[in-house]
């Protein structure tokens, strides 16, 4: 049963494999293959870090523009065309700001806190696939790796809240940790239902399992409850409104970020937006078919009479895959920004009630239902 995903992967093995091509071309230049591999390895990681950072800049710009539109303003206009350079200006401002450390704080933990918050988020980009071979590593742990990495973040939040030596920071840090722990469980259970359908935790297998039927094959039709649970829990993990209690300005000044300025604050800021984009990407991968386009490209190619193995079709396929993943992810980011201006913030007791008394039982029922449907209809639910 579990070899299903693997077989599918072997069938799909065609497609661009940049790594092989790169290593082969380097070995032809006379470089030993070990060294060629060592030269290759940092390249995708660097590309991913740059991509994540650029993604954040785009998201910040979108947030400003869409927030402005929601409030019937214009938003940034003169910094570059349509204000696209506004986030860059923000970043530059934060870089040149004075980096103050409060006098009675714990300087070591104060510095380490934002670092621990940011590193796991960037590390999670390891598993985001943009195509059959366009992923840094196709680890078999895939989604579980992301869940476990994101569970490290509360330690950094607690650390910065404690080290700031400020009541509001400490309360914010404690709230952030409580929120993050409560919403991890429904999140993991929603992922578990998808993993059960795909017979694998690897993100590439999960997308493969949704491929073939275009938009009809996506997991959102088979896992509507799971999709909603995942999205709510992901918003709570990202501390977006309506779940932005840890940094609720009206109650807690800015929560654990109160004492931070300059680059350390920028790390929190960067981390939260990278996390938002990452969550949107993972929703796209888990529920919206990942890199698959709504109408399968192979179908279009067959209609046009192009052979599936031609080189340029593979390039088009890869480009379509990357575009599709990003389009889906940014659609979800758009929804998150709209939600920010639509729904009010929940109270802390409502937040915990929602997490423990509603999402947790519903996600357990969802898991049970998925298991039952998988046994009853193995064709549709990946038996």
């Amino acid at each position, binding site marked *: 049963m579990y070899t299903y995903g693997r077989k599918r992967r072997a069938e799909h093995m065609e497609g661009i494999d940049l790594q092989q091509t790169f290593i082969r071309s380097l070995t032809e230049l006379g470089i030993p293959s*070990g060294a060629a591999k060592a030269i290759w390895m940092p390249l995708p990681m660097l590309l991913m870090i740059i991509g994540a950072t650029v993604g954040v800049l785009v998201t910040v710009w979108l947030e400003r523009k869409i927030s402005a539109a929601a409030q019937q303003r214009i938003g940034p206009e003169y910094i570059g065309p349509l204000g696209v350079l506004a986030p860059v200006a923000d970043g530059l401002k934060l870089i040149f700001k004075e980096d103050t450390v409060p006098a009675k704080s714990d300087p070591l933990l104060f510095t380490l806190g934002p670092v621990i918050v940011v590193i796991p988020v960037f590390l999670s980009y390891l598993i985001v696939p943009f195509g059959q071979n366009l992923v840094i590593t196709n680890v078999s742990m895939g989604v579980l790796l992301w869940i476990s990495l994101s569970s490290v973040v509360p330690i950094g939040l607690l650390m910065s809240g404690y080290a700031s030596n400020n009541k509001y920071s400490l309360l914010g840090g404690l709230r952030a940790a409580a929120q993050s722990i409560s919403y991890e469980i429904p999140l993991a259970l929603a992922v578990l239902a998808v993993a059960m359908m795909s017979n694998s935790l690897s993100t590439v297998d999960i997308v493969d399992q949704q491929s073939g039927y275009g938009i009809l094959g996506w997991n959102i039709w088979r896992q509507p409850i799971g999709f909603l649970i995942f999205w709510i829990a992901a918003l709570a993990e990202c501390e977006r409104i309506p779940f932005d209690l840890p940094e609720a300005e009206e109650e807690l000044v800015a929560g654990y970020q109160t004492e931070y300025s300059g680059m350390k604050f920028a790390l929190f800021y960067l981390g939260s937006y990278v996390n938002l984009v990452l969550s949107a990407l993972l929703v796209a991968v888990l529920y919206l078919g990942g890199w698959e386009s709504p109408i399968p490209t192979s179908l279009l190619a067959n209609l046009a009479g192009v052979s599936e193995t031609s080189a340029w079709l593979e390039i088009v396929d890869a480009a379509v895959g990357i575009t599709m993943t990003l389009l889906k992810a940014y659609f979800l980011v758009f929804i998150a920004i709209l939600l920010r201006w639509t729904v009010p913030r929940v109270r802390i007791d409502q937040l915990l009630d929602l997490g423990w008394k509603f999402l947790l039982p519903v996600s357990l029922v969802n898991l049970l239902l998925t298991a039952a449907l998988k046994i009853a209809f193995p064709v549709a639910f990946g038996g």
Partner: protein
Amino acid sequence: MNLAEGVQLVSLGLLSFMMLGAALGVVLLTNVVYSAFLLGGTFISAAGIYLLLNADFVATAQVLIYVGAVNVLIIFAIMLVNKRQDFAPLPKAWIRKSATAVVCLGLFSLLTTMVLVTPWNLSAEVASADSSIIEIGKHFFTDFLLPFELASVLLLMALVGAIILARREFLPEESAVAVQQPILTLPERPRELAGVTPGSPDRTIASKPSDRNK
């Protein structure tokens, strides 16, 4: 030795160093918050060593459960206990410390000899890296079924216990008698209320001049 082996050796050294250093820090540091954070470092290093042993599921579970749940709860508990007091120096503390050191060293030497003396039944085949989770699942539902189910029963009992403690419906009646509890206050200076003192300018916090251009 090729690249992969070199990387493995260096990471093993680094991880072991990190683990031992962090573990010693947990025990020897006097600041309990530092100890709690270093405990997280120990757990992370252990996860790295599992990863080197091709046990990727165990490594992720280690990070998820020990770092993400256990360690966060420990730190949480430490931070909720708002008590900062200096320990009074005990007389003849060196006796306790040296006794602890002797016990620890004895345990360490015992375990070391056990590891070295036991003829381990090592399997020659390479650990299945990519499908370790499948192997673990198979074992859970065949030859390790009883321990697995017992562990889940244990967790269920802990869950029920936690809920009973949190709901407090089954506490004895005597808690109702002890109404005269001392009022708990945060350790902070008492300050006069704004606007009560006569002659003070009537303004809110937000209208301070430093906040005006925010």
